[in-house]
């Protein structure tokens, strides 16, 4: 347990470092263009307005002082007011966050529930029609932009057939298309991953031992092989959760889903940079937190890992 605790602290320290880096990027990106105040105001703003906003946002202070203030406030969840909505940015994000998390979680769930069995069957019946068919399907799934898939589904299921509502959030029917569209490429990726990991595990000695002991094939596959195959799957699933949150940016726009993705896109068009900054930072922190949890889970699933050797 000593080593694990040490590893936990090492990981925590890494996480803190990453968070500091992320806060720096989030802070500095609006300075990329030179004067951030000019970005936030319409082109015909008067000198008076420019000066007021600059003073208000503290842009007259030296850069490091601005950063320290930003980081200090951010650590307390304080990002200032949205320029457009005139309310605290954090409140807006917290209001929209559940919708995005719901969408991402639904996409992840659909992807795993569909893909893992497909991957297992493909691995067990390697080279069969089922295997080739599902791998071809997975290739198509990987090659389809998710927002296009979303539009195609709207065209078919909403416009042509009238089965599902085109947009909005609230009912289960409204969740079906966005989560399926968002989860499709992930599903394809998981199916391929499960298949290749299962193939690898199934060729290992302990599986041969289990079989030669006369265990039922289903026990060998689902109890012995799958347990080890889960390890890389959990890691990738954890890493992909962050990408899912990023992916919601477009899919929320397609389905008018009231989440943070749509919030940030609108904020960009409204030149509402404090809100953009806050959203980006909050999503990154969630991503880092999820990765940290996955790492801990990983440690639990695979006690053999050597925690101090760099890969």
């Amino acid at each position, binding site marked *: 347990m000593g080593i694990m605790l040490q590893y936990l602290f090492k990981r925590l320290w890494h996480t803190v470092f*990453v968070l500091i*880096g*992320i806060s720096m990027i989030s802070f500095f990106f609006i300075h990329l263009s030179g004067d951030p105040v000019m970005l936030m105001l319409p082109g015909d703003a008067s000198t008076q307005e420019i000066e007021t906003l600059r003073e208000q946002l503290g842009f007259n202070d030296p850069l490091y002082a601005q950063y320290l203030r930003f980081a200090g406030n951010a650590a307390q969840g304080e990002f200032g007011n949205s320029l457009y909505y005139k309310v605290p940015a954090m409140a807006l994000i917290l209001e929209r966050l559940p919708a995005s998390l719901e969408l991402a979680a639904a996409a992840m769930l659909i992807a795993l529930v569909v893909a893992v069995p497909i991957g297992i069957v493909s691995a067990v019946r390697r080279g069969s029609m089922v295997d080739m068919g599902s791998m071809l399907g997975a290739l198509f799934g990987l090659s389809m*932009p998710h927002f296009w898939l979303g*539009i195609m589904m709207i*065209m078919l299921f909403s416009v042509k057939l009238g089965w599902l509502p085109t947009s909005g959030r609230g009912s289960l029917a409204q969740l079906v298309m966005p989560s399926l569209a968002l989860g499709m490429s992930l599903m394809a990726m998981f199916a391929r991953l499960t298949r290749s990991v299962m193939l690898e595990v199934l060729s290992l000695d302990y599986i041969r031992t289990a079989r030669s002991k006369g265990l039922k094939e289903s026990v060998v596959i689902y109890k012995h092989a799958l347990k080890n195959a889960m390890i890389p799957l959990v890691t990738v699933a954890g890493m992909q959760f962050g990408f899912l949150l990023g992916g919601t940016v477009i899919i929320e726009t397609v389905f008018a889903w009231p989440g943070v993705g749509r919030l940030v896109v609108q904020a960009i068009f409204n030149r509402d940079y404090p809100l953009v900054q806050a959203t980006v930072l909050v999503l990154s922190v969630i991503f880092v937190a999820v990765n940290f949890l996955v790492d801990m889970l990983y440690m639990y699933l695979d006690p053999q890992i050597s925690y101090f050797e760099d890969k």
Partner: protein
Amino acid sequence: MSAIHDTQASLLEIAAPRLRFMAETLREVARRPSALIGGAMIAMVLIVSLSFPLFYSVDPLEQDLMARFTPPVWQDGGSWHYPLGTDNLGRDVLVRLLYGSRVSLLVGFSAVLVAELAGILLGLFSGYYGGKLDSLIMRVADIFMAYPFMLLTISVIAVLGSSIFNLILVLGLSDWVTYARTIRGSVLSLKKKEFVEASRAIGTPHRVIIFRHILPNVFSPMLVLGTLRVANIIIWESGLSFLGMGVPPPMPTWGRMLAEGRLYITDAWWLVTLPGLAIMVTILSINLLGDGLRDALDPRLRNV
């Protein structure tokens, strides 16, 4: 005279194993049907994208308001004048798709080049020199990995403004981490090989070891990774374009065609279907080629 002859002979001796290796690699790649099909498909896409003005020179911006929403030729009301129909302003969909392919391919391949260049350099130095430099580069890589890619690119593009150049730079520079990590891993194991230790023992300068001895050995993983990433970048580029943050108008792009077509989803199916199909065919061929290359050259990358 004989000195020259000797040089030639030794050149041949040096070249022969390399040529043999290349031939073997090519044979290995050619044995994979997916690599062949994907390679042929993407070659076709490239050739058409580069050469179409020779046989289909139509102005992608010309509006024919009398012919708005003309369906594709095989449907009632379609005509050969507009093989794939027209959009809401009566512009030719086929030629706009063809111009869109140029944007996607240019951004896709160039951004990957930028990412490879940055990733290879950082990965080589990180793996070869180790120590503090390595920790620093890898921690920065952690930060980039933790940043939601899509958000990073849209926020930077929103600040910098979108142009082909900015897109290539931003997409490329946000994607260096995968390359750097893969390269670093390979360098760590190569560093312990005899040929590297031997050249270090005879005093070969570091930069020669890095660029002449180690770099050629990481070529195949980089080729495989790069190919597969082109597909991702093209999807991202079309996504940005879809959100209105891609290459600015009037240049037609697949993403913007989709965004515009979405408004007419009830009456003009081709406006939302065809650009997506174009993206899918392109991505599919790149993925097929990438899968084939990976299986032939570097099976270790299977889970990337």
